[in-house]
Structure formats: C-alpha cells, structure tokens
C-alpha cells in the first residue's frame, strides 16, 4: 500500500504541507477563501528546530493502537487506510494519547482528525506531497 513518507534531509520547514492539507480538507476551491484569517488545523505538522525539520502525519500502521483504543469505533481500517468517522467521535482523545507518533490531533470542533491520504477529499492524491517543493514528502510503496 502506498503511504506518505517524509525525508527530513530535504524538509525545509516551509510549512507549505500544513497549508495544503488544511486547504485540501476545507472542501473549498480557493485557498485564500479557505484559509485567510483562520487558524488552521492541518493533519500533517512540521516539527523540528533551526537545524532539522520533518513532517509528521499518520503512518497508517498495520496494527494501529488508535483503532484498538477507540471507544466508539470511530476509527477503522479501510483497505489499509486508517480512517475516522467524525460523526462517531466523542472527543475522548484516547487515540491522541496512544498514538506513538503524535499523528492525531483535534479539529476546530474538538473532534479527532487524522490524515486519510486525501482519499476522502477532492485533492485525489495527498496534497502535502503534491505541494512539497523539495520532494521531502513522498507518496509511495515501500
């Protein structure tokens, strides 16, 4: 299965992936309309310091702790992709606690959100990968 991988060697810490993620999941067709003067809730986040940066997003584990721990069954695996049904999420944040990579976060409504590889939005392919200027984020089979 293709997954999003990051290569910290080429990550510039420009944070474009965060904005492309937020835009892709906004459901809107214009980035300025979607993101201007708004706090963004991206599903990928850049971590690091002056020396190193890397993007953190869901690794779509084969044996995911988040799915096991979800008390409402909001998290599930669909063809290897860990997806979230936000209607079912009650915001208990257990998944955030158990994710060993820190890849799950809360959205503006305090409901859990995570990377679903842009399979459920109109981007068609991971927007973070498409917009990365230095191939630091790639979508590939490994």
């Amino acid at each position, binding site marked *: 299965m293709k997954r999003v991988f990051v290569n910290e060697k080429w990550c510039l810490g420009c944070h474009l992936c965060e904005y492309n993620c937020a835009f892709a999941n906004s459901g809107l067709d214009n*980035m300025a309309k979607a993101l201007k003067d708004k706090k963004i809730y991206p599903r990928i986040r850049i971590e690091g310091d*002056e020396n190193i940066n890397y993007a953190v997003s869901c690794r779509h584990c084969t044996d995911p702790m988040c799915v096991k721990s979800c008390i409402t069954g909001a998290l599930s695996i669909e063809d290897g992709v860990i997806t979230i049904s936000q209607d079912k999420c009650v915001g208990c944040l257990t998944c955030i606690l158990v994710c060993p990579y820190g890849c799950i976060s809360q959205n503006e409504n305090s409901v859990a959100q995570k990377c679903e590889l842009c399979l459920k939005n109109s981007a068609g392919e991971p927007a973070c990968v498409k917009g990365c200027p230095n191939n630091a984020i790639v979508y590939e089979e490994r």
Partner: protein
Amino acid sequence: MGIEYIYPEFEVVRNADRCIKCGVCQRQCANEVHKLDEDLNVMLSDEAKCVNCQRCVALCPTRALKIVKSDCRLRENANWSDSTIKEVYKQASSGAVLLSSMGNPNPLPVYWDRILINASQVTNPPIDPLREPMETAVFLGKKPEKIQRDENGKIKCELAPQIKLPVPIMFSAMSYGSISYNAHESLARAARELGICYNTGEGGLHKDFYEYGPNTIVQVASGRFGVHENYLNAGAAIEIKMGQGAKPGIGGHLPGAKIVGDVSKTRMIPEGSDAISPAPHHDIYSIEDLRQLVFSLKEATNYKKPIIVKVAAVHNIAAIASGIARSGADIIAIDGFRGGTGAAPTRIRDNVGIPIELALASVDQRLRDEGIRNNVSLVVGGSIRCASDVVKAIALGADACYIATSALLALGCHLCRTCQTGKCNWGIATQRPELVKRLNPDIGYQRLVNLVTAWQHEIKELMGAMGINSIEALKGNRLMLRGVNMTEKELEIFNISHAGE
C-alpha cells in the same frame, strides 16, 4: 539615509486579499525581506533587502506576491542612466570595486540572434528525425591528419585520447565552493545519465564524486586548488583554465567565509583562508610554458587523458588559439564575454572580452587556414542559451558547447545575479547548510537530464530540417547559416552570406 540613501531597486507587491499569512515567504527568504508583524497581523516587507530571486513568488501558495521594478527613478538622462548614477553613489560610499555575478546583462549584440539557419525545400529532402536515424554524437580530441596504414596495408586505428559525447553539450566549469554540494551532485548525476561531462571548476573534486569520474572534467587553474595525482587521473579529461569569459585577465577570490568543512578539504587549504586564484598561472608566460604544463599533465596521467586549454574570448583569440593548438593540447575551450561567474568585478565583466560567436568564427577559420584544425577540438561557451545556439555554434565550426547558466536555470536559478552574497535562496550559489538543502539533487539532476534531452530533440529537428542526418556533416558548414542585421565586416568575420544571398 541622507546622502547615502539609494531607493530600493524592487518593490514587493502583496495582494492582501490573497495573503493567508502562512509565513512561507518569511521562512524562505534568506535576505529577510518578509516579516509577520504580530501586533498588526500583517506581513510586512523590507524591499531594500530584496534581490528579486523570486523564491517567495514561486513558493507562495496563493500567488499573493509579485516583485516589480521600482518606478521611483532619478530624472531621466540618456547619458547618465539610473544604474550608472547609483553605481557612482555606491562607490562614493564604499570606496570599493563593484562586484557582480552571472553573465553580462548589458544590451550588447547577441550574434546568435542575427544568424539564421537554412532548411531544405523541394530540391533536397528534409529528414524526419522521428522516423530516421539521426547522429548527434561527437568525439573531442586530436584527430589524425591523414589515414595511416601499417606494412600490411591495414589502417592504423590508434587515436589520441578522445571524449565521446552522445550530444555536443557539456556542463562547464563551476567549482565546489562557488556552487553547492547539491548543485554539483545534480550536475554529476545528470552528466552520468546523459553520457556527457560536467566540470569540477577549480575547486577540486569532492571525495563523494570520484565515482562520476568517467563523466568528469577535472580542472587545473592558477590556484591549483585540490590538484593531486588521483584527482588528475579521476576524470575523463583535464582542463587547464587560463581564463574565464566573465572575467578575462582576472583571477578568482573565494572568501574565507565560504572555505568551510568539505570545501576546505576538497580545495586542500585551511578553513577560513581566502582561496585566491592568481590572474596568471605563475609558471606560464608563453606557449612554450603552456606546452610544459600540458605535457606535465599528460605525463601524470600516462597520456590517457585529453588536455583541454580554456581561454576567455579576447581580441587576439585567433592567434592565441593557434598557439594553443601547437602546444600539444587536445581541445581548446573558448569562453565568451557573456559567460557567467559567481563573482566578478562589474567593470571587467561588462567591458572585457568579446562575443563568443565572433571568437569562434575567427578561431575556426584561422586554424583551418593554418592547416592545424585537426590538432584540436573546439568547445565554446559563454551563454549558449538554447538548442539553436548549439546548432549555430556547430555550423560555425565548434565541436561541442559548454553550458552553465542554462544548467543553473534548470536547477532553479532565477538569475538575480547576487551569487556573491552567498545567500542563494535556491540552494545553488551558497554553502549555508539550510540553504544548500533547498536543492534536492533528485529533482535537480532530473531537470538537467530533461533539459539536455529536450535540446537533443531540437538539435535533431533542426538538423533534419536542413537535410543533415549527422552532426559531423553540420560541423563548420557555414553554408547553412545566413546573417541578418550585420555589417559587411561582421559577415566577413563570420564568413557567411547575408540572408537573401
């Protein structure tokens, strides 16, 4: 302020309706032009620091930015141009020589644009390169004057060492130090994939790049940086750099600030010391001296590597080339006055040297007239911008072309011409690690491969249109060229007819 103040050259125009304050421009500008003012919650710009490298423009996700030339001008004056006056101001303030980078930007004649290529019609068929074989391979090196046979009548096949290029294009010299590790890696990998050569420049060869040796030309310049036996034997050929088109008669100076880590090791000089290449080679004051160095290098490499002598195109270039052709060199590389540089005194760059087109035409003619054209191959550089420039150069008598500015453009260079600051936002002309990593060689090398492949297609198209299916048949074939907007004298030097003739 006051008398020292010079109004900024560019303006940063931000479309407030589009700006989402993502801060990408701020994080990506090494010149620190952009800044988010948290109190005002707006992105501010200090255009005085902007060099118009277009990095912010290219990365802005909402296309909210553009950089425009400032329209705050001094009173118009056809004699004293805005830039001339400002240069006087700068020098009155600094007392220093003005420095510039990349090639001469002034509106001096570009003869490539005044030369037109022929095509076949009716009486001689053009060739479709997509249907019929087209040969673009060339061999660089000394060629035998005549066919020689042994006592059994068999042809003697021993040739002087040659470089085989599948397309008559090489990446010209750019040193590690003047450009980044990742830029070098991109060039090396692209050269290997394309089967052509890149050139180390005078900065030595980084240990990681010895594996690209068969596609490397190693340079020996007046500073002799990084030159040792293994280095000389690592490459496909050795180039003696006598001069550079952007700064003929001038040496080089890589500031100590750039001599860090691997650059220092590769150049074999202490960290922090300035790398000063003298203007002359201190052991070369005549063709005989040059011959000694040519043969020293041949001895050091067991006569297995062709020796290139690179000179800048200057006034007596034909006589100089004639001397070099007799020095034992296998290849002469001539660099025209529009060639690029990482840093050169502005006055030198903009006023010294001659156009490569004229230099090439006169050198090829002189070597033919003297019957020594076979002694050497001719490689020309100094702003070869596109495939048609290559075709015109070949028809004027070149064996191959050197490209560097076009190669850097493929790597992301936006020709802002501030390489000398060492803050290249595209990760090319810098040694700052956070900037160097902006050029991912996986992307860079592919773009170089794409560029040369595209040019090769175009060269074949142009050849096919002329009804020529082998680049050898185009070489020195000036009948395929016509001049426009040229004086009698210019036509005479090019030895071509005017269009319509």
